[in-house]
């Protein structure tokens, strides 16, 4: 657990695949070395005691023990290295070099102890060369490879000169025979380099694949991290350019008619190069790509199908890779990668671009679908507002006309006629309230972002203003309307009409549903918020109605008894407006005893803000 926690401190994403591979390989090298050290000890024992070769026993054991000993140090160092990984690349490279260097010295000692240039152990060097080729950066790998024949040559030279004792494992000894020595060195050098070349080219291809996979993963991640279409496309172009290490990349999308390919995003390319839209009917390359659904390699200067070869020359583009973007409903565009002079795209690149194209289509279609939903939502809100606006006009006019009839402006009506007209007018009046409420609800929900008329509102002043409206109706019912407003000025940031409507609706309900007693409005500070409570001694709210109280069109059964008609939108509007003020609202009630609505709205300024405002 400890180690897992520690490795989290350096995010794995910060390492390239090759670096991660190096870390893994170093661990593997340490594990293998236990076997190598043990094998040296065992081989020495067998060679000396069973085969009877004159290998110097003690130095050979010492080499084996030395290998095991320094491996123990490496193990400890590797554990520490994992902790200090932020300094990763250099530290790890050096760690690899030290390991390989010591191994090669041990190898040289073993070769010297087992017959020098005549030793069959020389072949073991090839394993080490393969390991070095895989682990070390390739440009330096070839230098390291040269060290192996060099070490063997030095041993041969020192033995021939008598500086190092020669262990005669082969009879007759050949270590002073220049032809033999030269032949062994030449063959060994050739074998070393062929081995290094093979190992390096395989690892290079593997690393490239890994980089592409990581790139593809990165592309998918970045492209799906936003739903903004233009951002998605920009990121895709940029990531493609980086992974393919080419000059630039661009995405062209078909216009709604499907006849033109319009630049949607590009990276590494000039605006003038990208700006002309391509007529699909004229661009046979894009047609071919979209029809065949394969990636095409284009010689950007000489391909006869090119529409603007001159533009490529000016932009410095010499080669182009074109991949189709094909969605669920057919072609949607093309993804192109551009190479500058000297760049050549490989088949692997083409496969990679095809994979990116495939992922791009998913990201593009996601973003488009999201965009469409957002548009639909906006249109819907607009529709609700338009419809309700349109409904208001005929309602107003009908109401006016019925009022004229009712009040006898066009002749005196019989009492029966007046009764009917009055009923009709009341229904129309209710319809008007409903439409107004719907409009408020739609406005509250629809343009959260659009309305920016928020300004500091003094809650105390607002409460006095709104409650004044209700003093007459309250008095008419014999209710006491009481204000308990704190002396402290409490300012909140909101649209004044929103707060007005909230307090208005709460007071209207309190007065409407209270038969006797009082309605109390309390305003107090509560931490960084203003707390406004409207409390009444009214009919209260049945317990099972409480959870639905703020639902649209909901009316508690006892409210219907008091007042037959109501839109059931008043509290839904309150709730949506409260949310818009970043506030909360709670209700407590006991049926038959009264209700209390508590509104909390954050104050406009914290303590620091208030000081700023005072300055």
């Amino acid at each position, binding site marked *: 657990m400890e180690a897992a926690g520690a490795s989290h401190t350096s995010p794995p994403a910060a390492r390239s695949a090759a670096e991660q591979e190096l870390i893994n390989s170093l661990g593997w090298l340490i594990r293998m070395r236990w076997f190598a050290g043990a094998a040296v000890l065992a081989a020495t024992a067998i060679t000396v005691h069973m085969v009877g070769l004159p290998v110097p026993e003690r130095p050979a054991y010492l080499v084996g023990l030395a290998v095991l000993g320094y491996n123990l140090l490496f193990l400890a160092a590797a554990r520490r290295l994992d902790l200090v990984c932020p300094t990763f690349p250099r530290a790890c490279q050096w760690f690899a070099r030290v390991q390989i260097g010591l191994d090669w010295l041990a190898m040289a000692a073993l070769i010297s102890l087992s017959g020098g240039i005549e030793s069959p152990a020389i072949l073991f060097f090839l394993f080490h060369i393969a390991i070095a080729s895989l682990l070390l950066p390739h440009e330096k790998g070839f230098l390291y490879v040269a060290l192996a024949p060099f070490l063997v040559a030095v041993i041969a030279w020192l033995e021939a000169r008598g500086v190092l004792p020669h262990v005669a494992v082969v009879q007759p000894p050949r270590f002073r025979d220049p032809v033999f020595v030269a032949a062994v060195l030449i063959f060994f050098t050739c074998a070393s380099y062929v081995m290094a070349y093979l190992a390096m080219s395989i690892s290079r291809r593997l690393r490239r694949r890994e980089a592409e996979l990581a790139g593809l993963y990165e592309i998918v991640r970045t492209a799906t991290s936003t739903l903004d279409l233009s951002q998605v496309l920009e990121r895709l172009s940029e990531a493609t350019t980086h992974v393919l290490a080419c000059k630039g990349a661009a995405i062209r999308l078909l216009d709604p008619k499907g006849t033109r390919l319009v630049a949607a995003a590009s990276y590494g390319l000039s605006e003038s190069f990208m700006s002309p839209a391509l007529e699909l009917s004229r661009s046979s390359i894009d047609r071919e790509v979209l029809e065949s659904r394969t990636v095409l390699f284009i010689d950007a200067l000489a391909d006869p199908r090119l529409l603007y070869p001159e533009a490529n020359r000016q932009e410095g583009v010499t080669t182009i890779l074109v991949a189709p973007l094909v969605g669920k409903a057919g072609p949607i565009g093309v993804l192109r990668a551009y190479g500058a002079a000297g760049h050549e795209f490989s088949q692997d690149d083409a496969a990679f671009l095809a994979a990116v194209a495939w992922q791009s289509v998913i990201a593009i279609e996601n973003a488009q679908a999201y965009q469409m939903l957002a548009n639909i939502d906006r249109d819907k809100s607009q529709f609700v507002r338009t419809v309700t606006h349109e409904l*208001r006009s005929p*309602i107003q006019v009908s*109401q*006016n006309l019925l009022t004229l009839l009712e009040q006898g402006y*066009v002749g005196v009506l019989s009492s029966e006629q007046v009764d009917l007209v009055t009923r009709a007018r009341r229904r129309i009046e209710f319809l008007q309230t409903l439409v*107004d409420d719907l409009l408020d609800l739609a406005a509250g929900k629809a343009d959260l972002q659009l309305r920016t008329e928020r300004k500091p509102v003094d809650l105390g002043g607002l409460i006095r203003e709104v409650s004044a409206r209700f003093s007459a109706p309250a008095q008419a019912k014999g209710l006491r309307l009481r204000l308990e407003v704190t002396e402290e000025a409490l300012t909140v940031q909101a649209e004044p*009409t929103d707060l*007005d409507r909230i307090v*208005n609706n709460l007071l209207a309900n309190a007065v409407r549903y209270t038969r006797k007693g009082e309605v109390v409005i309390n305003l107090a500070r509560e931490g960084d918020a203003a707390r406004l409570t409207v409390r009444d001694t009214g009919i209260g709210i049945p317990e099972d109605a409480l959870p639905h109280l703020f639902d649209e069109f909901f009316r508690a059964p006892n409210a219907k008894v008091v007042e037959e008609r109501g839109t059931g939108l008043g509290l839904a509007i309150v709730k949506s407006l409260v949310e818009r003020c970043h506030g909360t609202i709670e209700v407590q009630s006991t049926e038959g005893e009264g209700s209390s609505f508590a509104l909390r709205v954050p104050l406009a300024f914290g303590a620091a803000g208030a000081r700023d405002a005072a300055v």
Partner: protein
Amino acid sequence: MAKILLIDDDPDYVAGVQIFLEAKGHRVFDASSGNEGLERVKEVNPDLIILDVMMETRTEGFHVSLKLRDRSPDAEYAAYRNVPILMLTSIHQSTSLRFSPDEDYLPVNAFLEKSVRLDILLEKIEELLAAAAGPEHV
């Protein structure tokens, strides 16, 4: 008794307001578009203009008011510059006015939501007429 010009393209609204205001002793003239309204201003020389905002276009009423209140010396409607204008909006206002008369931008004397009851409309009309008549009597 005052001469009131009602510029509104909704004949039913006009009919209702006309009956009501005439019953209250005013003379009501009507026009169903901004251009017709401007013509009738010269013809009728009204004491007050009731102007709907949304007619053929959503802002037609605004343009009519700007022409009537044009302050350049050779303005076509210079003679009617001081006729009070009551502008009717169908913008829904649950509480206070979203925008109020502005000397330059919206040169009208008052705004009223079109859905107000007729008696409130009358109240406003009489207030404006009194204000317009006031200075002359001083």
